[in-house]
């Protein structure tokens, strides 16, 4: 049946451009599926806009701040508008990588060892002096990343201790807290999970960047990365990775949709969980649509399943 679907996109986040790409692609698919699409850029008039239009469902195509931190979900809850993706709580938990990593650890889910520091600890407590200790404990290279930011924005792989200050300052431009995480030299994998009552994993996507590291540059450009779906890993590793991804999804009380980013060590023994995304990208180079395609779902099929789950909320 034809529905009025508001596609929420753009917004104030630093991932605005990717969100617009996701939103436009989703809007096209929704139109093909016969729905009436209302594209809404998120700004100070969002509540008025949501109230003015008769909306059956809000499709959240936002990434980062406001879209993946529980803000927009809370607004939609108050307005009684059904929406796609997980609810407020999993968004709040997953957006802060420090909290989500602590939850993984408490559920015995492997995640790379890490320490976090905030801006004031450097400015007021001389935290830079602690860096050699962190290096000693975790070892080099290190991944330096903001605690609350998606799409690999603000992330740097640091090989030399001398490069840590610049990378930390760079990351702190995106978030008040910075994570220094052990670099796991392994196979980068993304596991998408879909389904409300019985969440299921889609085929695992392997990400093989042409450079050493899957950064924002390679994520956003076609041709910078080779993708393999299904991932070139043993069937036992594939099973293990999917089990861990589901455990992550459940540990953060996710529903309907998520994507879990994992690094599998070279021996294919330990799947280290990096993070969970509650609003996975839906662009031409995004991982969720890639996995869905391998599972025999067209982009429209994927969008259809995402909205049907949410319309029945």
């Amino acid at each position: 049946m034809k529905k009025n679907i508001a596609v929420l996109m753009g917004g104030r986040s630093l991932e605005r451009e990717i969100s617009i790409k996701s939103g436009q692609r989703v809007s096209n698919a929704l139109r093909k599926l016969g729905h009436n699409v209302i594209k809404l850029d998120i700004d100070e008039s969002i509540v008025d806009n949501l109230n003015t239009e008769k909306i059956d469902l809000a499709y959240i195509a936002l990434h980062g701040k406001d879209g993946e931190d529980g803000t927009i979900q809370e607004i939609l809850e108050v307005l009684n508008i059904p929406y796609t993706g997980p609810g407020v709580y999993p968004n709040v938990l997953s957006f802060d990588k420090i909290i989500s990593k602590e939850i993984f650890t408490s559920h015995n889910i492997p995640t790379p060892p890490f320490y976090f520091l905030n801006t004031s600890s450097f400015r007021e407590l001389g935290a830079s002096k602690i860096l050699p200790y962190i290096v000693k404990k975790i070892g080099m290279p290190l991944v330096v990343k903001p605690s609350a930011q998606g799409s690999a924005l603000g992330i740097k792989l640091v090989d030399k201790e001398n490069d840590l200050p610049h990378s930390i300052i760079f990351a702190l431009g995106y978030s008040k807290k910075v994570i220094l995480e052990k670099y796991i030299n392994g196979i980068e994998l993304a596991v998408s999970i879909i389904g409300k009552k019985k969440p299921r994993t889609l085929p695992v996507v392997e990400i093989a960047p042409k450079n050493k590291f899957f950064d924002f540059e390679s994520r956003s450009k076609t041709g910078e990365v080779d993708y393999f779906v299904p991932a070139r890993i043993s069937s036992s590793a594939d099973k293990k990775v999917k089990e861990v991804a589901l455990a992550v999804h459940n540990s953060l009380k996710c529903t309907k949709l998520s994507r879990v980013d994992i690094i599998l060590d070279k021996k294919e023994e330990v799947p280290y969980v990096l993070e969970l995304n509650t609003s996975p990208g839906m662009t031409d180079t995004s991982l969720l649509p890639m996995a869905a395609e391998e599972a025999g779902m067209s982009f429209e099929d994927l969008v259809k399943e995402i909205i049907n789950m949410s319309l029945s909320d």
Partner: protein
Amino acid sequence: MFSSEIRDLLALSARPDIISFAGGLPEVRAQNFQKLEKYVKRTLKSDGDINIQYGCSDGYYPFKTKLIDVMRLEGIETVEEDIITTTGGQQALDLLAKIFINPGDTVITESPAYTGALNSFKSYEAKIIDIPVDENGIDISILEKKLKELEKKKIQIKFIYLVPNFSNPSGVTLSFDRRKKVLELAKKHRIIILEDNPYGMLRYEGKPIPTIKELDIRGDNLNVIYLSTLSKLLAPGFRIGWIVAPHPILEKISLGVQSTILCVSTFTQRIAYEYFSDPSWVDNIKRFKGIYSKRRDIMLKTLKGNLSSIASWSKPKGGFFIWLRFPDYLSTKDILADAVRNKVAYVPGSGFYPDEKGLNEARLAFCTENTERIEKGIKILSKIVKEKIKLYKSFK
């Protein structure tokens, strides 16, 4: 070229809640829209069918007569046959790059230089040698030394690209003595100068300095190709630029126009013809200058009040841009995300160098925002910079 990360951050500067010192957007709202409407109506009413038809690849002749009047105000005496119109100044640059540059050819630019020019030259695989500028423009002694060195190596320079008036991005103006010297060097080494002059009429203080083209016209008039645009004199939406060049070069440019766009829009050229036929366009320039000079003054004043002990900057006598330089350790790329999160945008300096120099530099456009927002934006930026400096110092 910037990374995707920086490009995406800069794309956010288009949002109205962001105080943008990033793009050099002319204050088109100050145009007289009633008059513009009249020019459009007149364009449609008189010879309307011709004005929406294909036109001549060299440009709409009556409009070129008006360009002659415009250039005369800058001291350049030329004739219609020496002019070709283009779709904006950027196409002029692209056409010239296409004609002159074969892969591996060497060109010289200012350092820092206009990103659009660098990108255009790079797209034709030019090797770019950039010569630093100081407060009087391109450093002549370094240029002279470099030219000698290249001549010894038998490397032919295809051209020297300069924005002598209130350059983008540095804001500096090439002094009269240096203009004469650059021309002398170009003649001596048989090198063409591309003189790009988008901002020449937007001088807010001091006396105008003759263009290099004017100096060349006084001589054999064979050494300078002059290019400019209506983007700052009228509005960028018209997409009209032009080139004044010796005939053999113009013929090639004309072929380039034919093979890419056939002709520049007759419609917009005709409206522009009406605009420049009305003597009030000179008053519009005065009005623009009044607006921009106030914005420049408030930006300079706020910079002085907030960043004096930390940064240095150019003090342009015209144009759109101020060039900001921080201590070496402060990367303007590293603080851009923080700035954008706090609703201020600027362009990191490295994009204005062919080899990613200028990590501690930034371009600030003062033309786009009103004085209140400029003051507010510079204060926000200053606060972020000061916090970042504290952070940097905490690592020492």
